[in-house]
């Protein structure tokens, strides 16, 4: 018994393969678009990352064949007192500079969030430290902090606050770290201020009016309206800033080269010294990679602490 056909069967003709139509398929079109940049990033970020891990397991003096040594480079770092000084220095530098930039940047953003004349001009001028190439502005700071001709010392001496010759800002271990933190803050604070200002401007004025009617003081409004609404912005800005402060190279390389006596040596400058000046690629790659776990911990801690509350 055959099933009654409901309609006269039309011969189904499979459409001829059309390249044009194939290219229009969402998956095909999308992957043709994203594949070249993805391959590019895989070749110049992904591959070097894993090659770096491999290098860190080798004894590999520059310009010679390497030999596999397992974790020996990491063990050597563990027993290297300079390495532990680098860890402490990097954390001090990152934490103090980040707190200064966050607090100062939020303060400046609140100041800028008032109405005043020449606001756009002021904002443009305040951002200058952030846009000018870091190495070039750091050279100016190096001259400001010069041991013999520091303008800070000249001013302090001229006003009678200190006796000549005055402190050696980059020659004293503690002052050198302080100087680096100040210069890093100088450069990074505008980024916080302008980004946080943009965040502040998205807060509806009605919220403040409502809080004022409910009798909230200026501090209450800041604490219970501004801060909770700003948390996501603060989180993103701080995360970027922490990563790039933790891995900072150029500012320290120019101002102190990690000195005096490794007092300002951080991960990036130490890895550079070992790999480029010392010619030990394997050891240098290992030191650079030890940045990853503490950096991941810092980001995790921040994510927990600054997590946008679900209220």
């Amino acid at each position, binding site marked *: 018994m055959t099933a009654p056909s409901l309609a006269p069967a039309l011969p189904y003709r499979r459409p001829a393969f059309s390249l044009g139509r194939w290219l229009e398929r969402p998956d095909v079109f999308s992957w043709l678009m994203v594949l070249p940049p993805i391959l590019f990033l895989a070749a110049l*970020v992904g591959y070097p990352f894993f090659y770096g891990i491999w290098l860190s397991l080798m004894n590999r003096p520059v310009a010679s064949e390497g030999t596999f040594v397992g974790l020996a480079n990491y063990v050597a770092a563990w027993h290297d007192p300079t390495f532990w000084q680098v860890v402490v220095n990097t954390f001090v530098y990152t934490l103090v500079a980040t707190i200064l930039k966050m607090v100062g940047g939020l303060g400046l953003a609140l100041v800028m969030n008032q109405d005043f004349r020449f606001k756009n001009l002021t904002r443009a001028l305040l951002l200058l430290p952030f846009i000018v*190439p870091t190495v070039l502005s750091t050279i100016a700071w190096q001259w400001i902090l010069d041991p013999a001709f520091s303008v800070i010392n000249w001013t302090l001496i001229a006003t009678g606050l200190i006796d000549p010759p005055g402190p050696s800002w980059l020659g004293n271990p503690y002052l050198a770290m302080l100087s680096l933190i100040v210069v890093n803050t100088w450069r990074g604070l505008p980024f916080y201020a302008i*980004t946080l200002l943009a965040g502040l401007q998205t807060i509806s004025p009605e919220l403040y009016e409502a809080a004022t009617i409910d009798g909230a003081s200026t501090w209450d409004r800041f604490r219970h309206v501004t801060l909770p609404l700003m948390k996501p912005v603060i989180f*993103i800005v701080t995360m970027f800033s922490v990563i790039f402060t933790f891995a900072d190279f150029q500012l320290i390389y120019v101002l102190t080269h990690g000195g005096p006596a490794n007092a300002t040596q951080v991960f990036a400058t130490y890895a550079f010294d070992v790999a480029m000046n010392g010619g030990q690629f394997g050891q240098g790659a290992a030191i650079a990679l030890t940045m990853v776990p503490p950096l991941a911990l810092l980001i995790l801690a921040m994510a927990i602490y600054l997590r946008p509350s679900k209220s």
Partner: protein
Amino acid sequence: MTVESHSVSARFLKLWLPLGVSLLFALFPFYWMAITSLKSNQELYNRKIMPLIVHNPTLKHYVDLISDTGFLQWTWNTFIVAVVSTAISLLFGAMLAYPLARIRFAGAALVSFAIAATYLVPQPLLFVPLADIINSLDLGDTLTSVILTYPTLLVPFCAWLLLGYFRTVPSELEDAARIDGASRLQTLIKIVLPLCGPGFISAGIFAFTLAQNEFLYALIFLTKSDVRTVPVGAIAELVKGDVFYWGQLMAAALLGSIPVAIIYSFFVEHYVAGLTAGSVKG
């Protein structure tokens, strides 16, 4: 009257004082750069002379910088490298961003993850293996070495920023074009891209300033004077051992900052939009 003067002094304390202090802190190093570059060496290295102003301005450091060093070559190199790597980054950024913004396709989540991960990898993590790779490809001391590596720092940012701009284009416009028979590529080029000009300007300005700012890769890959960029040239050639040529260094720092500052001043609104897009919208 008292109310008036009270509010004036309150406004001074809450606005003008902190603003003035911030501006002084932000701008003093540039002032110092400028006046140092205009002082003669006698004036520069005499502690008896009040240093806050220039007593006898001279352009000698600028003349020496341009005639005795490769500064003009470094400036040209910096410009070429920044322009080419920005162009590559905008192209690749748009190629990544458009499908992510508009099309549901298999593997989109993976692509987004790859972009975010690349964004968060700091350079010092990669410079040792990259130095080895660049050497083995025989690209050391060529501008190609930095033109190839800078986009790795810029593409993720451009992609992220352009993603936001592509999403603002009403999809009805694209649907209409597709119904009229335009292919996806034609729709992108003829309908979407012209509407996203501001996004490309923001991403381009940001990428350009980042490329001008890069130092670590340039320091490692470029060791010959004629291929150096301005920051590396200044550090490597205007500091000889313990001798700092401060006048020339300041002249180089100022001249090297001016191109960025000029471009930035024309497009400051776009720059700020780019700077804040990631954190405020994201």
